[in-house]
């Protein structure tokens, strides 16, 4: 048995880092260790990872309930399961962030104890988390070597950069080693996370919902990287909610439900329908029922709206759109083409530099967020952890954050906590939010359940317009189906829905009208019934209708 190293040996410097939720603080070593890590080479065993009888409970939930998992060299295992099934928990155990209550872990046939991410790294295990863990104010190269063992006190960053360029060429992961993290898009940040693992020569890679934030092209690139690594004898565990990705990425699939393994299949022997059924425990209809499209008066109107992004660069360039009552206007486009800014301008969170915004025929250009909320506008924001929910407040408080200004949640400036709880119980029931109690701090819910809570609150507060930015991102198929049905229900109630999505199938099945955004411009607007995926795809890539690139 390997003896776990002490967590903070003397005479070393550490940086303590936190992920974006402020959770999972861990420390990283800045000074060199002795030599290259010892590995049982020579006798390379087929089985890289074996987890047996892993159990882990959190107050009120059994997140892992006796899970066994194996991973062989050169294999890609897809981990599938509903929101809150315990996928991230299991992987965090393997990566040394959580310790299991019971169970054994064997790496290359040897029983090990993984007490910290450093232990995991020493064993060649690397994880890309659901929320990235990079230091914003440092460069790519600095982030890559941060926490590296065997690093001299003043690292030779030139050599590091060379190595990064080498790796990025080999795996086709283009990143500028000198760029600062805050300058990078989400997709680029993820490349940095992967480079970090490659740099460390990790051969057991864990990717927790890596594609949730990626554009379809970026997902394909990632798939190529994973295949290449597999060819080199590395192995990967891959979490996703998208069935097509399971089929294209993986060799084997394991399905979790409520902390238990409910099925294990060879990918070639299964199909998306079966997997969906195994995951949810019932048949999933990948179909949305809609009433006929009978649009009413325009609710949201934008005329020539321009705005800049956080760095002051133009993000919207003269957008004109209109969304009518009883209509779902789908905004298609590769992430980062102005979608977020569009939603923020509509909801008053970002100033419009030019143009007019009006809601129900009243001009609301640059009105305060509160006055826009008062006009019955609800908003499901892109950033659910920092903006949509307040992690350290209870589920009940988070659910009350739209309605607390008026009866029944408050009267005369006084809030009624018991009514907060009543509301929370109702919404938890209605939207099937998995939480131990109404008083649990919301950051302890799984990613998908946090999103469900935000959705429940916003839909409840919607009076005339619902702005939904990637509402089904990170949701399991059951929840995705539920979200789509909710959006359609809002439309059928006569509300206008602005739906930002990068999932073309979602737009085609849910939206009535589709507008494609590219570099802050509207490339085209057409009824969803007349659209096809190829045409949307071409417009998303900046091709004009004639087929030439702008």
């Amino acid at each position, binding site marked *: 048995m390997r003896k776990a190293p002490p967590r903070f040996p003397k005479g070393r410097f550490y940086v303590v880092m936190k992920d974006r939720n402020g*959770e999972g603080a861990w420390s990283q070593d800045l000074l060199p260790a002795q030599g290259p890590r010892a590995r049982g080479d020579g006798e390379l065993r087929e089985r890289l990872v074996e987890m047996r009888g892993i159990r882990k409970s*959190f*107050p*009120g939930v059994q997140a892992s309930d006796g899970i066994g998992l194996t991973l062989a060299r050169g294999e890609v295992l897809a981990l599938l399961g509903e929101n809150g099934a315990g996928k991230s928990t299991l992987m965090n155990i393997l990566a040394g962030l959580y*310790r*299991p*209550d*019971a*169970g054994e872990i064997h790496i290359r046939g040897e029983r090990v*104890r993984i*007490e910290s991410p450093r232990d995991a790294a020493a064993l060649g295990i690397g994880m890309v988390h659901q929320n990235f863990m990079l230091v914003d104010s440092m460069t790519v190269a600095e982030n890559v070597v941060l926490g590296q063992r065997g690093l001299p006190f003043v690292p030779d960053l030139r050599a590091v950069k060379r190595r990064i360029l080498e790796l990025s060429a080999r795996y086709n992961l283009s990143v500028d080693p000198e760029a600062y993290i805050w300058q990078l898009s989400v997709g680029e940040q993820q490349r940095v996370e992967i480079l970090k693992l490659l740099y460390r020569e990790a051969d057991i890679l864990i990717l927790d919902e890596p594609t949730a934030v990626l554009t379809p092209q970026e997902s394909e690139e990632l798939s190529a990287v994973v295949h290449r690594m597999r060819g080199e004898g590395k192995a990967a565990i891959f979490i996703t909610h998208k069935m097509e990705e399971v089929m294209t990425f993986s060799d084997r699939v394991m399905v979790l439900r409520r902390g238990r393994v409910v099925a294990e299949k060879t990918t070639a022997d299964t199909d998306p329908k079966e997997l969906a059924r195994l995951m949810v425990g019932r048949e999933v209809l990948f179909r949305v029922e809609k009433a006929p499209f009978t649009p009413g008066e325009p609710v949201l109107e934008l005329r020539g709206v321009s705005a800049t992004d956080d760095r002051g660069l133009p993000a919207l360039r003269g957008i004109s759109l209109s969304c009518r009552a009883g209509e779902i206007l789908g905004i298609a486009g590769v992430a980062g083409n102005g979608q977020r800014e569009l939603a923020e301008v509509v*909801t008053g*969170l970002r100033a419009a530099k030019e143009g007019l915004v009006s809601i129900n025929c009243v001009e609301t250009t640059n009105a*305060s*967020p*509160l006055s*826009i*909320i*008062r006009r019955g506008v609800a*908003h499901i*924001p892109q*950033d659910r952890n*920092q*903006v*949509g*929910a*307040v*992690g*350290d*407040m*209870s589920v009940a*408080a988070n659910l*009350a*954050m*739209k309605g*607390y*200004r008026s009866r029944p949640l*408050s009267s005369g*400036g*006084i*809030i009624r*906590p018991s009514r907060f709880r009543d509301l929370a119980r109702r919404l938890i029931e209605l939207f099937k939010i998995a939480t*131990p109690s109404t*008083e*649990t*701090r919301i950051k*302890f819910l799984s990613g998908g359940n946090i999103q469900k809570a935000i959705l429940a609150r916003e839909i409840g507060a919607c009076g005339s317009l619902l702005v939904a930015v990637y509402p089904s991102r990170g949701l399991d198929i059951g929840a995705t189906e539920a979200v789509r049905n909710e959006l359609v229900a809002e439309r059928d109630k006569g509300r206008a829905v602005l739906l930002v999505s990068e999932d073309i199938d979602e737009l085609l099945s849910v939206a009535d009208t589709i507008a494609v955004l590219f570099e802050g411009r509207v490339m085209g607007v057409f009824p969803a019934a007349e659209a096809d995926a190829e045409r949307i795809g071409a417009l998303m890539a900046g091709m004009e209708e004639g087929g030439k690139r702008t």
Partner: protein
Amino acid sequence: MNIHFEKRKSLSRTALVLVPLASLAASLVLTGIILILSGADPFATYRAMFRGAFGSFRAFTETLVKAIPLTLTGLGVSVAFRLKFWNIGAEGQLTVAGVAAAAIALFLSPFLPAWALLPAAVIAGALAGAVWAGIPALLKTGLKVDETLVTLMLNYVAILFSEYLYYGPWRDPKGYGFPGTAPFPEAAWLPRIAGRAHAGLWVALALALFLWLLLARTRWGFELSIIGNSPRAARYQGIAVERNIVLAVLLSGALSGLAGAFEVTGISHRLQQGLSIGYGYTAIIVAWMSQLNPLAIPFVALLMAALLVGGDQVQMAMGLPAAMGFVMQGMILFPMLAGSLFTEYRLKIARA
């Protein structure tokens, strides 16, 4: 078997009460070691301290005298801390309030009816405290100037300004050169309830209850906790973040200001040297130890006051430095900070 920490889902109520008590116990042990090292008998010292703080009616009222400003400044500091506005300027806010109250009491008595003099002085004090806190609040929300530095620096400005006044233009000509203003007219004296303890006690207790209700039960309190946890989320919910931070910090300054106004109108009846014995700094310990809970603050303030008064007594009775009271205060803070781990985390024992 292995033991480790795990983050709690909700703050443990038991831990919220136990941690401060355990820190107190730990600090007694730690201070005991220091006492032994300096050649004193810790038990005798603690007994003397306790007797000094609670041993007689007079002693108890003296403890109350110190508990009142500690409660008020503790409340003030905790309001700001809840918004992650690190107001360490309660000392300065208290001092300018003393100056403002003195100005009213000294110079406005010919123009005001007698009954109005005291309320005017107290209100002026609270307003001055608010203004003094408002400066860093506006600098922070308007220009993103770090509030920690500004509030700290303004402490020195306030203290030196008050010294200038009672050494210079406001010095009592009949005061035999003693640094201080002339005594206030009696109309500006705050009534006393026992010994030197004054009616500010009732105000402080009422404000603690009021503040708790304000934070836990009102819409504004709910908005403040959203802002304190995540300003970006607050903005998204339509809450005017900057304005509310400024308002809450004004409230924070006003509370500390009340403490200063009560000190001059209730205790010294003049502005003089020694207006504050570091209440504004001890308030930070009070606020942390109460976990920013207004209902806990009066009790913690009483405890801290007892340490101060008891420390003085130890000096007289046992020949130990009075600073021993401060040493104990510091000693409480360390276990307290370590102990807050237990309110956020719990120990988990696992068999592996």
